[in-house]
């Protein structure tokens, strides 16, 4: 029988990590993720979770310890946000290149300066090139569900990449919603204990992380690139097995009313639901609008996106971040690159919204659709970059 528990996003993630019977947690507190590590230390100190909690002295050491622990064969978890992620940056690439299976919750928060503790996707995007798998939760239930799936994906022998669950800072981390939770004894059916591949073993001495020069480095990178691409069908398989296990369905792309949409929004994270709500209302008025949100951000679901955008005339790609000096913000560039060689592709423009926790209200979404309709109608993009909800 379903058991609904009221939890905020952080608590839900911590609860899932506990139920996943993680072996090692190494993390450093940072808003808005702190509740996660507080909860986990509480579980460990109360004997509810048999794991080693490593209270490191920095995020750099947090991820470094996770790399070591993962190589040693442990199921490993960390959580961070914003500046903490930035401090981990060096180790992000190492974690992926050594093919560790770390799972990280990222309570998405804006980068300084000026310092801000609220939601932007700066940190999520900072990982985009680092070889991690990235999932985005749109609500607290998804944050809970995706945490289990992240462990399955990361540890899958056909995947072996560290995996991030993104959840919007405060909007999800600190919001309480009803979560349909599993009973502890059900979990192993979906998530059995980790079976490490090639772990550190004194009986089988392997050297991890050697010096690699021009005679091999590019081969190793090509191998890593292909492996991340090849993980895609296995991620889909995990989603499918989770559906069988829980009855809740996850897909790389979540779409609403895209079948005959003429204009569409593409978006990540908690604001997707707000856009869907607006789409439902505009559809009632007969407007051919639709919305696509990405549960899977890396590897980027290119083929599916091309498919769902077929026949769409104008697309607003919404970024909760900015890429200074770039031809577009991060998701915009992903979408643009995905469509570049497609015939009859939609016109694209980039909407910058919600930086530092600025609320995305339904009226903002209506403005975006108005803009998109204009682009579709006139067949040209007067402004490639539109900031929404900013005082002019």
């Amino acid at each position: 029988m379903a058991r609904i528990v009221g939890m905020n996003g952080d608590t839900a993630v911590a609860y899932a990590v506990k139920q996943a019977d993680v072996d090692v947690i190494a993390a450093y507190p940072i808003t808005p993720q702190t509740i996660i590590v507080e909860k986990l230390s509480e579980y460990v100190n109360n004997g509810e979770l048999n794991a080693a909690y490593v209270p490191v002295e920095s995020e750099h050491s947090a991820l470094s310890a996770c790399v070591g622990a993962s190589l040693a064969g442990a199921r490993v978890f960390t959580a961070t946000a914003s500046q903490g992620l930035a401090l981990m940056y060096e180790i992000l690439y190492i974690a992926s290149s050594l093919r560790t299976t770390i799972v990280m919750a990222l309570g998405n928060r804006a980068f300084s300066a000026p310092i801000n503790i609220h939601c932007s996707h700066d940190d999520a995007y900072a990982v985009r090139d680092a070889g991690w798998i990235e999932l985005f939760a749109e609500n607290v239930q998804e944050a809970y569900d995706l945490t289990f799936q992240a462990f399955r994906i990361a540890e899958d022998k056909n995947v072996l990449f560290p995996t991030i669950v993104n959840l919007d800072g405060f909007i999800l981390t600190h919001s309480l919603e009803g979560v349909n939770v599993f009973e502890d004894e059900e979990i192993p059916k979906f998530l059995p204990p980790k079976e490490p591949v090639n772990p550190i073993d004194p009986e089988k001495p392997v050297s991890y992380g050697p010096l690699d020069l021009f005679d091999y480095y590019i081969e190793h990178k090509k191998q890593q690139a292909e492996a991340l691409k090849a993980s895609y069908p296995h991620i889909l398989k995990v989603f499918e097995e989770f559906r069988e296990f829980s009855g809740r369905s996850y897909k790389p792309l979540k779409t609403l009313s895209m079948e005959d949409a003429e204009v569409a929004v593409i978006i990540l994270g908690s604001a997707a639901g707000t856009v869907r709500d607006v789409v439902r209302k505009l559809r009632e008025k007969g407007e051919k609008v639709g919305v696509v949100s990405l549960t899977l951000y890396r590897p980027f679901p290119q083929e599916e996106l091309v498919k769902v955008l077929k026949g769409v005339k104008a697309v607003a790609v919404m970024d909760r971040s900015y890429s200074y000096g770039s031809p577009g913000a991060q998701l915009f560039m992903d979408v643009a690159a995905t469509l570049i060689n497609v015939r009859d592709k939609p016109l694209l423009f980039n909407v910058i919204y919600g930086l530092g926790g600025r609320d995305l209200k339904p009226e903002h979404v209506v403005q975006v659709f108005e803009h998109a309709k204009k682009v579709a109608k006139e067949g040209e993009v007067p402004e490639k970059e539109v900031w929404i909800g900013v005082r002019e």
Partner: protein
Amino acid sequence: MSNLNLIKTVKDIPPEEYLAPGHRLCAGCGAPIVVRLALKAVPGPKIVVSATGCLEVATTIFPYTSWKVPWVHSAFENAAATASGIEAAFRALEKKKGAKKPKIIVFGGDGGTFDIGLQALSGALERGHDLLYICYDNEAYMNTGIQRSSATPKGAATTTSPAGRVIPGKLERKKDLIGIAVAHGVEYAATANPAYPVDLYNKLLKAAAVKGPTVIHYYTPCPTGWRSDPSRGIEIARLAVQTRIWPVYEYDHGTWRINIMVKKPKPVEEYFKLQGRFRHLLQPENKWLLEEIKKDVEENWNRLLKLAGLKT
């Protein structure tokens, strides 16, 4: 400690080697000597974690490794943190699956220990992970080409503390690594030197026997960075001790001991003249710096005598 099989001569050191030749360290490098001995001294299963540095790059040039034990390298400043994670993982897996926890040995150079890695080391020492941290100190960033570190001794010329007309080399004193380690409450910390292999080996035995963090600060001759004759590395190492420039001592469960007592120190000039990095100190215009160094050496020796409960 009493049940330790401390050795009396070099002949008592086990013959098995866990570091293979074919590595690309410079001829005459002092680093592999401590590696060889540490891998012999630490009993049972072991894992090595290396910070980025000479030892790391020269022993694991893909597709070859010199290591016959599991070896992990992640980055420059995080060896202690990476080792913490490995130790924590084996601790957890030991509880859950009964897998025996190996001993973790960490090797960091002076850059990776005194400077960029000090925070991670401090964290690991404070948290009390069961690991033996060995700093192979060649007194500058040798991997990147002889740049000053906070372990570079006063007076030494490096490429970022050159012996200039106005500033004749490094003017700051070397950090006290053992003091830092002891301040964290470690049970065992010691300096060691390749000219005294029996002392070095016994210290590795003592450190390995502690359940918890221990630190060995190892003097590492570097002919390339010191501009010295590769064949004279051990001789220079011995002179460092005999001039009292590099005292060999230990902190052992609350007790300080000077292991190599130097009753009549040799003049520091004897040590300096064998190394290009110090040669400018022997010029008349730099006499003030030489005198300052002599004073420092005496001060440090007296400090250690005091710690060891001996008369100055």
